[in-house]
């Protein structure tokens, strides 16, 4: 007699990804939201829980690892990407997430950051950017704005900040996106896109430090200002922003220009259509940061700025091992020990 077995409904839920450790970020810290969004989207990714590995560095953001009920290493300052390289190369089957902050990824870990972008392992690289050093209690970071007053710059910082998305593109990142703690839906969508993308998916996540840099990004989430200050990118859709979606961006040569859709006869079709695979345009969009074009300031872009898959590091290594093994065959240990030139006494 045929029997039918019914698969138990063992789909994971968000709280399956919460570890038993007490979360110790400051009340109101943006990192809570990021943790929640990650835990929310994980059950939908279709990956067995034991395959997830979180590798983090040092800083508030990097405590993240302890709060996920997955595998993980809370490592040392700046080196998460380097450790993740080894994890992914040694076992490509694992689903690897690097968690880092603006200081961890872009200051002390800057070298590993750029090389991770270039090497293109299939992993997800989240940088929680709060534009300040939180865990060391309030010094300026490599993303702090020029003039920033902090404990180490009581008279204002003199340094130009990094624009992380521009840096990532310059370092040959294959996936570059930006999102923020205060827009859960957007963040969830970007996280899913990052995970689905095969390659090093870099996501800059703006996160609020309530203690040392409060409201640094409120302009992009506050109802009053959000629509004028931020632009939300969607592949194949025109670049439109503004309170009543009244502003569009056109590209004239290589110079972007903001047009008022109410006042001109420009149709949405002639606006700049976002193309995630266009590196040149992605470079321009990433510069909607501190670059002014013809004296005009542009809204901060959120969403997937660039995404174009290319061969993965670990797959190429695996493939090369396969090819060499097929061609040469495994060498026996005895043959390795003897080498090809021996003599007998």
């Amino acid at each position, binding site marked *: 007699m045929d029997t039918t077995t019914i698969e138990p409904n063992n789909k994971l839920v968000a709280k399956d990804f919460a*570890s038993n*450790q007490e979360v110790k970020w400051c009340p109101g810290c943006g990192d809570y939201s990021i943790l929640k969004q990650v835990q929310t989207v994980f059950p939908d990714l279709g990956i*067995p*829980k*034991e*395959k*997830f*590995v*979180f*590798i983090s560095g*040092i800083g508030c953001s990097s405590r993240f*690892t*302890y709060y*996920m*009920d*997955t*595998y*993980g*290493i*809370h*490592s*040392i300052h700046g*080196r998460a990407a*380097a*450790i*993740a*390289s*080894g*994890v*992914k*190369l*040694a*076992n490509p*089957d*694992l689903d690897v997430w690097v968690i880092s902050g603006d200081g961890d990824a872009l200051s002390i870990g800057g*070298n*590993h950051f750029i*090389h991770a972008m270039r090497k293109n392992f299939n992993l997800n690289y989240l940088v929680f950017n709060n534009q300040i050093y939180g865990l060391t209690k309030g010094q300026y970071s490599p993303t702090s704005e020029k003039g920033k007053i902090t404990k180490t710059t009581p008279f204002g910082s003199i340094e130009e900040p990094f624009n992380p998305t521009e840096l990532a593109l310059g370092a040959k990142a294959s996936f570059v996106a930006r999102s923020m703690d205060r827009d859960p839906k957007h963040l969830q969508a970007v996280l899913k896109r990052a995970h689905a993308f095969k390659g090093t998916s870099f996501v800059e996540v703006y996160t609020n430090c309530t203690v040392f840099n409060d409201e640094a990004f409120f302009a992009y989430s506050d109802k009053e200002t959000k629509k004028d200050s931020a632009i939300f990118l969607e592949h194949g859709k025109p670049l439109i922003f503004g309170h009543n979606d009244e502003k569009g961006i056109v590209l004239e040569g290589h110079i972007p220009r903001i047009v008022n859709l109410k006042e001109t006869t420009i149709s949405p079709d002639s606006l700049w259509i976002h193309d995630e695979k266009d590196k040149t345009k992605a470079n321009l969009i990433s510069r909607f940061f501190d670059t002014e074009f013809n004296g005009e300031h542009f809204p901060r872009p959120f969403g997937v700025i660039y995404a174009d898959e290319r061969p993965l590091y670990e797959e190429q*290594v695996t493939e*090369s*091992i396969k090819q*060499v*093994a097929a*061609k*040469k*065959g*495994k*060498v*026996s*240990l*005895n043959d*390795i*020990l*003897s*080498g090809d*030139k*021996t*003599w*007998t*006494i």
Partner: protein
Amino acid sequence: MDTLESNAPLKARAKATVQESESIVVRFSGDSGDGMQLTGMQFTDTAAFLGNDLSTFPDFPAEIRAPIGTVAGVSGFQVHLGSKEIFTPGDTYDVLVAMNAAALKVDLSRLKKGGVLITNIAGFDRKNLGLAQYPEGVNPLEDHSLDNFIVHKIDLTKLTKECLTGSGLGTKEVERSKNMFVLGLLFWMFDKSMDSTIKFIEEKFAKKQDLANANIKTLKAGWDYGENTEIFNTRFNVNPAKLPKGVYRNITGNHATAIGLVAASEKSGLPLFLGSYPITPASDILHELSKYKANGVKTFQAEDEIAGVCSAIGASYTGSLAITTTSGPGMALKTEAVGLATILEIPLVIVNVQRGGPSTGLPTKTEQADLLMAMHGRHGEGPLPVLAAASPSDCFNMAYEACRIAVEHMTPVILLTDGYIANGSEPWRFPTEDELKAINVKFLTEANGVEGVLLPYKRDEKLVRPWIKPGTKGLEHRIGGLEKQNETGNVSYDPLNHEKMIHLRAEKIERIADFIPLAKPEFGKNKAKLLVLGWGSTYGSIKTAVLECMEEGMDIEQVHLYYINPFPKNLGELLKGYDNVVIPEMNCGQLLQLIRAKYLVPAVGLSKVQGLPFTTAELKSKFVELLK
């Protein structure tokens, strides 16, 4: 006159006397671009193949091509071959090949009186003499300053050119072939077959037949030159050495380290991962391991030294046999990550091929000055096993041991070798797979606590925690650099827990002493007036000097340390048997400090920090002085 040349062979054969020798030291010395390393290695391979015991010492400048003709650009390759056991490349040379004036200037002082000096006249023209900074008008080949030696003045450049007339090769390629002429001549002098080198040339230039032909022709021309000219009165014969029966190969230390790691991977069943960044003199391990792709070996040339060790930590975490290789400056950079691996308690082998320091120091020269860094170079209390290889072939044993200890005791292990044995070579009676010690690895696959609770830092009787691979269902857990609660591994700032964990981790390393061999007197004497205690690459020089002292009736013994942390369990007791202890080291007395501090033994040191190994004579004179 030219027509008489063809009659020369008979005369020469009749005249040359054969000098039987137990051991001979040959030094090939020339400009960095003269191919001295290759010439020396070919000579060595042939001598080894024909049964001589030997030891080599490649000695080259840090610059790839230092200014041509200068003293700074001199590259040397020294080989000591014998019909008896050979432990060092030799203090002084019986035969010196000097391809130019600078080479002579650098190496003449170590040529024995009455030794054979082969010079290339073209390297002693006005320009070369000037570059070697001989005073204007002085040419050592002409001023009788070399009267104490048997000097052969040969125009190698011209002879090679003549030999290759019509070969179709350019001037540069012809000029480059002159080392083959010298090699051919040396083969004649030592009556060694050219077959091995001819085969090597054919393989190397398989796709460039004209170059292969030219090199072989020049090689043979060198041999014929020895045979056909009357100028060579002496030929050498070094009979095969009476080594233990078995099958041998020649091997350098770096090569031996590489295959020691591969062997450990095969025996343990763990995939091998090397995360490394190129650095002299360690890069050859990375080069060598990159060739074993067919065996699944993964080598990762990381973006820097830190990423080298960190990628290895990542690989170890997933269950690979993970290695990082480096030299002093790189070791300094890896320090923080080694601290992480120490508190994570995961296996990792860190190979430090030591060189002259501090800083860039003497990148191509040897030193043993990183011992205290290996012992103590971590932030916080974090003792680690420290092992040291004694000779080129011993690098295999100790690399294998480092892996065994790392995976069986869940700890980073530091293996110290140095430039001297890394680049030097010796014949090696290699083991078979079956002769290698087993390496036992177990991964945790289910919860080890009560009621299905996972305790990632629960320890066994060796105080070793389980190795848990990510991907293992149900054992998800986090580890990290923050102090851990005993057993659970959860973050803990509890003062007493921290102290307990510090002691547990240290005790785990101490207990490794139960799993390593005891220290043993080299010549079986438990009592003597003088004990020479050494570690690392000084083994051969010490042994040679001690043997010579013994032959002269002195009461002396040698103990060599392969395990420095923990020390062999019997070391303290053993040391008590000797009236005096001397510790020769290529540093300012680092093992000396450790021994004096731990065993309260009034040992004395003998220090040399010149980027060069000890000579037998240096050691012997100190031993004699101490035995007075």
